[in-house]
């Protein structure tokens, strides 16, 4: 079975084509284009306009790159939520139009669950992980328990990516600021104390952000601030992930989301996993960020387990929580 997926929850519009072979996910193509604001954060309408101008070309290119014919596509999947309304609607409209013209079924999927399933689908040893999902908007610790994907811990205020972006932007860096902060952090030498906020398995970053901005105003070395931010925030993320692993007695950890590209975060989570005898996985780079292939793959899993969606039900849901998904494809 071949499935085409369209991702459009935030700044990235992505189209991927996947093929299921013996229950494994083979990515045939996975193209994307990211809206980059000239200044400030993401503007939902501008991002949606960007997606609308890109999506048709991306579908064409992705199908060509996958070396399939439109007639071979069996299913069209799209990101139903959570995300920014205008962006979600643009991706969903494109998916509806494509499904109708190909006369193929349409299915909407949960973006956060897709981040987890693409790990399970493309990494053979990854079977029942705790996912640390770290992106601009989302920071969640997710695992499968009692029939659903449950959020064991999440940010109580802002996502870690957003925290890094806000700090970077306050100093004039351009989005995405995470990679720039990572470079500064490598040259940091002195640790500046920052709030380390954990409540149970939940986490908060706004205090850390305010204090880091204050250090910057006082003229502390930028390298030291970036180093301290990464060390503090990532230690807290690693700790809540480990707590969730201990709580659920799971022995695998998976990273996902744009911030998973950060080498220091990867190293920390990997050390944590090694020390507790657990396995550590990161999907291939293009499958970690927001992408169409993961949407296609989750669409396939849902369709295969018997889920069908009518056109009327294909309305988007900006507040589509991870634990709202009925998981019919796992025992």
């Amino acid at each position, binding site marked *: 079975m071949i499935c085409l997926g369209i991702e459009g929850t935030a700044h990235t519009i992505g189209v991927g084509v996947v093929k299921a072979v013996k229950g494994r996910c083979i990515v045939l193509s996975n193209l994307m284009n990211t809206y980059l604001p000239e200044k400030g954060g993401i503007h939902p309408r501008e991002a949606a306009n960007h997606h609308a101008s890109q999506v048709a070309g991306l579908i064409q290119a992705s199908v060509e790159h996958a070396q399939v014919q439109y007639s071979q596509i069996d299913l069209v999947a799209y990101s139903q939520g959570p995300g920014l309304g205008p962006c979600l609607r643009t991706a969903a409209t494109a998916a509806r139009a494509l499904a109708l013209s190909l006369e193929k079924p349409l299915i909407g999927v949960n973006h956060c669950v897709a981040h987890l399933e693409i790990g399970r689908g493309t990494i053979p040893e990854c079977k029942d992980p705790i996912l640390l999902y770290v992106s601009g908007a989302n920071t969640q610790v997710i695992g499968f328990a009692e029939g659903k994907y449950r959020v064991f811990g999440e940010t109580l205020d802002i996502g870690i990516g957003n925290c890094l972006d806000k700090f970077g932007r306050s100093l004039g860096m351009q989005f995405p600021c995470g990679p720039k902060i990572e470079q500064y952090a490598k040259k940091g030498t002195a640790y500046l104390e920052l709030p380390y906020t954990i409540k149970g398995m939940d986490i908060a970053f706004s205090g850390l952000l305010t204090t880091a901005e204050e250090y910057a105003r006082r003229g502390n070395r930028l390298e030291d601030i970036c180093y301290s931010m990464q*060390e*503090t925030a990532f230690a807290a993320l690693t700790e809540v992930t480990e*707590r969730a692993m*201990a709580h659920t007695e799971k022995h695998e950890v998976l990273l996902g989301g744009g911030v998973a590209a950060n080498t220091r975060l990867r190293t920390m989570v990997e050390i944590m996993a090694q020390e507790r005898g657990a396995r550590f996985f990161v999907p291939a780079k293009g499958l970690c960020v927001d992408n169409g292939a993961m949407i296609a793959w989750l669409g396939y899993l849902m369709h295969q387990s018997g889920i069908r969606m009518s056109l009327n039900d294909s309305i988007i849901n900006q507040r589509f929580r991870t634990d709202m998904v009925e998981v019919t494809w796992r025992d």
Partner: protein
Amino acid sequence: MTDKILYRGAEAEICLTAYHQKQMVQKRRVKKSYRIKEIDAQLISFRTKEEAKLITLARTCGVSVPLIYDVDLVGGVITMEYLRGKRIKDILNSLGERDRVRICRKIGESIALLHNHDIIHGDLTTSNMILHDDRIHFIDFGLGSISTELEAKGVDLHVLMEAFESTHSKYPDCFERVFEGYVKAFQRDASDVKKKIDDIVRRGRYR
């Protein structure tokens, strides 16, 4: 006698050890090499100190907790009484309806006793409660604090609510029963705390 590890948690090992010829439990906080030593040392000594302080305080509020015999701040070790009970997490799902409701209410009463004295547990889950001698003992105050704020009490209960949702989802009324017990024993207006919990739920992503 060699020490036996009873449980390996995320931040500490719980070991059975001999101390003055008695069988005791030691909670040993483990150094984490994923974090830099400044953060590691700070977290370990701060949490050990806070935990020992809060456990002692909780006892004076009438909440069952293990007795503390010794505290080592540098090593991050608390030596305490060995409770030969069962974790609520492991027994709650197999209890009969009446016992389950009774246990949940008792949990709520104990939390209210803590909150009456502004003690915030910080990690209220059913794995941190041990049924021993028909009393519910609270353990693991490692993320606890003292706070007069309503917000802290709300967050404390919200953590427990989430734990029930993920671990005891078969019985969706557990938290309601806990709150019934809480209302009974809380000396201030529990409806303010309830409102705070609703606030916190709404504040969560995508609510």
